């Protein structure tokens, strides 16, 4: 298995199939002679390929392209696994910023590390879409070699976009959330 991409149709990671289902699908694919698989359903657009140079078939660009990080799903669930080797993928830093209302505030990664949306495996996420936050609200963790740094919203407002899959590599300055500030 060389390559897994999960491309949410929208940054809103909702109605996602349970991770066990995804694991089962990936296992079926791995054990098959198929070279590629492309599954589009409600809340998911899953592209699997055994070719490291494969690209997801062209279609209307997702609303938030920065959601397309290469992510290797660790077995047993996507949370709090040691950083998984990812395939060589194009740098994410050059992804153009998606168009969002000018007043939205971007919460960015303070450094390179692994992004965690919840405090520990299986626990509820720090924040959910549409949630009201204050400047001090913890929105995620970024882990560097077992050292966890909490990231705070930095502004009071409403979480409008969650841009990064749990347990994936984020780079310095990468957008993580969009917050619509309170007036």
């Amino acid at each position, binding site marked *: 298995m060389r390559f897994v991409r999960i491309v949410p149709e929208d940054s809103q990671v909702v109605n996602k199939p349970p991770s066990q289902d995804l694991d089962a699908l990936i296992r079926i694919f791995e054990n098959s002679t198929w070279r590629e698989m492309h599954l589009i359903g409600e809340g998911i657009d899953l592209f699997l390929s055994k070719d490291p140079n494969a690209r997801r078939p062209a279609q209307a660009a997702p609303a938030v392209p920065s959601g397309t990080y290469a992510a290797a799903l660790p077995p047993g669930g996507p949370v709090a696994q040691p950083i998984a080797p990812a395939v*060589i993928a*194009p740098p994410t830093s050059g992804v153009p910023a998606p168009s969002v209302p000018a007043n939205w505030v971007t919460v960015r990664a303070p450094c390179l590390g*692994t992004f965690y949306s919840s405090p520990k495996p299986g626990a509820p996420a720090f924040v959910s879409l549409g949630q009201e936050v204050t400047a001090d609200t913890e929105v995620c963790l970024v882990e560097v070699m077992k050292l966890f740094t909490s990231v705070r919203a930095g502004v009071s407002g409403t979480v409008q976009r969650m841009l990064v899959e749990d347990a994936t*590599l984020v*780079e*310095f300055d990468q957008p993580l959330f969009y917050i619509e500030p309170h007036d």
Partner: protein
Amino acid sequence: MTERSEPARILIANRGELAVRIARAARSLGMQSVLAASAADRDSLAAREADRVVVIGSAQARESYLNAPRILHAAIATGCTALHPGYGFLSERPALVELCSENGIAFVGPTADSMRRVGDKLSARALARAAGVPMTSGSEKVDDVAQAIEIAARIGYPVITKASAGGGGRGMVVARSEQELAASFEHASMVAREAFGDGTLYLERFVERARHLEVQLMGDGAGRVVHFGERDCSLQRRYQKMIEEAPAPILSAAARTRLHAAAVALLAGIAYRNAGTVEFLYDEDSEEFYFMEVNARLQVEHPVSELVTGTDLVRTQLLLATGQGTLPEQAAISVRGHAIEVRIIAEDPRRDFLPSPGRITRWRPPAGDGIRVDTGFTEGAVVPPYYDSMLAKLIVHGRDREQAIERLAGALAGFDIQGVATNIELLRFIVGNDDYRNNRVDTRWLERALLPAFRMQS
């Protein structure tokens, strides 16, 4: 493991021209490369040459190139199997080597243990002494001024203070008398403490007219060490090398053989792994050389040795570290012709070498027979203010020193860089100088004779 068919993937923990070289060497060997870059370098030439770039932190080196946890995290997360530290930054930190081995990543360089043993100058002197390498008369660690004066009386003036924990000229003061030593000792110790976190000094007899010679070595980690000839790096300003050449033009065949043997013995004694250099002072009058220090990494000036031996040292490093190649036999390494490297730096020699970061508006490097330019920059690129300001290394190769100098003079005449100040005019002046052409130089010639003459002619 079923991953044996996977190509090796190299994490480049560095920037600039060397990062470009590592990326190209990896590609030429069918390996992949991942550059761990700072935000200031995300659009650099190195970033374009690497297969993948991950931005690990902001421009400040401590947030990026000096941040070992972030670099390791990037290496693991991108599936790298080896890490090349380059030179400077973390290249001589044993902790990085240990972090690599704890995480199953091959470090392209020596073991942490070797690094510690040669990194501390006093420990390195003990190793050199044990290997029978000639040393200047000197001391163990000196506790205070009183002891320094006592030791200096025994080894004889002039003496030089040196920091146990590091080099680069910091903590080094020449004293020609007891008064001078008494006046400068405390300050030298303070400078060393500020630079290296350790103010320990030792004393050496000071050689008045010295050459800086060094031997390029490579070890297999199992006790076999080969050399790639020596370099003469006597043209220095404030202990920073400006021009380097290979082979050293002043060495007799007998002295050269002894120099190489001493360097090999030192590193073979600790079963040194990968690339390293042993540096010596050479006293031209007595034809004696004295151990100075070991650099446990690739050095900036390694290309002159590559050109005269026809060996790509970076490729050799990668092959050795990934277990895909073996060390060449000594008999297969021979020196042909003469090579000279000059460092093109974004600094203004007419304004006390003030660094000159900024955008390069014009970039016309020379090309031609025997001319090589190693750089991390292109036209339109920005020289960031956060790091050292070397723009390029211009390296020439000729059948002998005369032809190499002619090619260097021609290449420098044609090197056109606009937008930032450079030292090219100074380099042209040096290469046109009679003493340089006739090889009548020593480690302080540049500051003593050449720079005053350069200032006069403007």
